[in-house]
């Protein structure tokens, strides 16, 4: 090839890659939103039924509840508000289904003002499924301000921490709370949380009173929770919607977690593709800039 034609061909190749890089760098963000929306919506309409593998921490969470006997009591804390319901409601539903199915009694509360409505809805829905009676099989203590003081005081007396339940019934009149009144009489504490409250349960209930704890967390919080599981301060935990799906599979009751996993997987594949495309665009652009600089 003649030198001038070779240079022209190289320049044409460079300009093509420069154009491609510019296109990749200036993709209309609304196009990305539409594609992500389709990647989430289509698997919900047409399920793919992709396999779900269970993790060590989810198995430990399941085993902690599975190891209890009928008539044992657990504390269940709804430590989240409506903004994270999508991730955490499936965990709460699955945990309560597991507990009620095994005849375990539940003392529920929330450390968030916005969690009271969620707790009422989830408790009444799952209790109705298993025909459980309020006051005998489960109670809802409601919201108490200042979570640290609440966690500490429950180690001494649940009735003094919550003189009345969420419905203003004196707690000393509730049959379930006549049997248990402090951590020492509770077999397991479950917190489903979108914040660092699992860490505070570990500090106050776990560290000070030796209470066994398992936690359901949002995906963002899960990274911060691993060290506590590794250190044995948590008996098990679930991370994000994936954790909820694993747990639903273990208790053999598919819910919103399992139904959302296909959409989660397709969205992740798409995001990995976007990251790859973004990097290709970046390197092409850098190469084009270098080529322009050398001319």
């Amino acid at each position: 090839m003649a030198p001038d034609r070779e240079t022209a061909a190289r320049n044409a190749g460079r300009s093509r890659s420069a154009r491609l890089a510019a296109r990749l760098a200036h993709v209309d963000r609304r196009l990305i939103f539409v594609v992500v929306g389709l990647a989430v919506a289509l698997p919900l309409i047409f399920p793919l039924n992709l396999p779900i593998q269970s993790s060590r921490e989810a198995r430990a969470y399941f085993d902690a509840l599975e190891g209890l006997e009928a008539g044992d009591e657990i504390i269940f804390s709804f430590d989240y508000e409506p903004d994270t319901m999508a991730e955490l409601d499936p965990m709460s539903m699955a945990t309560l289904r597991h507990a009620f199915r095994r005849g375990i009694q539940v003392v529920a509360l929330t450390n968030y003002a916005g969690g009271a409505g969620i707790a009422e809805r989830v408790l009444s829905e799952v209790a109705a499924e298993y025909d459980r009676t309020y006051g005998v099989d489960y109670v809802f203590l409601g919201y108490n301000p200042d979570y640290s003081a609440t966690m500490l005081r429950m180690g001494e007396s649940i009735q003094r921490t919550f003189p009345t339940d969420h419905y203003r019934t004196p707690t000393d009149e509730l049959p379930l709370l006549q049997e248990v009144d402090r951590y020492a009489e509770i077999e397991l504490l479950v917190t489903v949380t979108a914040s660092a409250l699992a860490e505070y349960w570990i500090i106050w209930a776990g560290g000070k009173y030796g209470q066994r704890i398992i936690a359901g967390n949002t995906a963002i919080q899960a990274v911060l929770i691993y060290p506590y599981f590794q250190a044995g301060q948590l008996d098990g935990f679930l991370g994000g919607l994936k954790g909820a799906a694993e747990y639903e599979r273990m208790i053999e009751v598919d819910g919103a977690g399992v139904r959302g996993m296909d959409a989660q997987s397709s969205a992740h594949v798409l995001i990995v593709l976007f990251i790859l495309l973004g990097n290709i665009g970046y390197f092409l652009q850098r190469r084009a800039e270098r080529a322009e600089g050398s001319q």
Partner: protein
Amino acid sequence: MWDTVGLWVGGILTVAIFSLLYRDNPFYRAAEHLLVGVSAGYYVVHYFYSSVIRKFYVPVFQQGDLWLLPGGLLGLLVLFRLSRRWQWVSRYAIAFYVAAWSGYLIPSVVQERVLAQVASTIPASPSSENTYAFLMGMLVLVGVVSILVYFYFSAPHRGLLGRISQVGITFLMIGFGASFGYTVMGRVSLLIGRFQYLLQELPATLR
């Protein structure tokens, strides 16, 4: 009937919030202002009832539990912040709160977040049953030590110190990557929740 109406109002508001993805518009603005207003009202009432009424007014004035009175009065001092002249009075309440909680919190946090974590970085002795656990324990130990070396700033990071801190950076990057991955998963989960609401729960009300 009202549950169905509530579900459809929720659906309309979800679409209104999603419309911001196209561009700013009056529907998005209306939904946003409604969210802020309703949230503010809900939390003011909830906090006032559960703190002032349930924890102070009822025990003190209806049940005669006068031990709570000094705490309640101390809490009232915080309201002096609203006056420029008298705002110094509020510092007594804040000082009491900070001192009491520091005393409560510091030993427990050091025990559970520092000492227990340090103890768990020491791997259990190897045996034929727990070789995998031992190797994972060693990995944690190497990661913790190299990251601590990376954050040691009293000597230049050259030679052996530099190489160890490079290992620390690698562990940090893996940690940040895992954290980012989990964040993406969390955000996608929230989107899935809204789509399940729009595509599964709402159509179910029509059946």
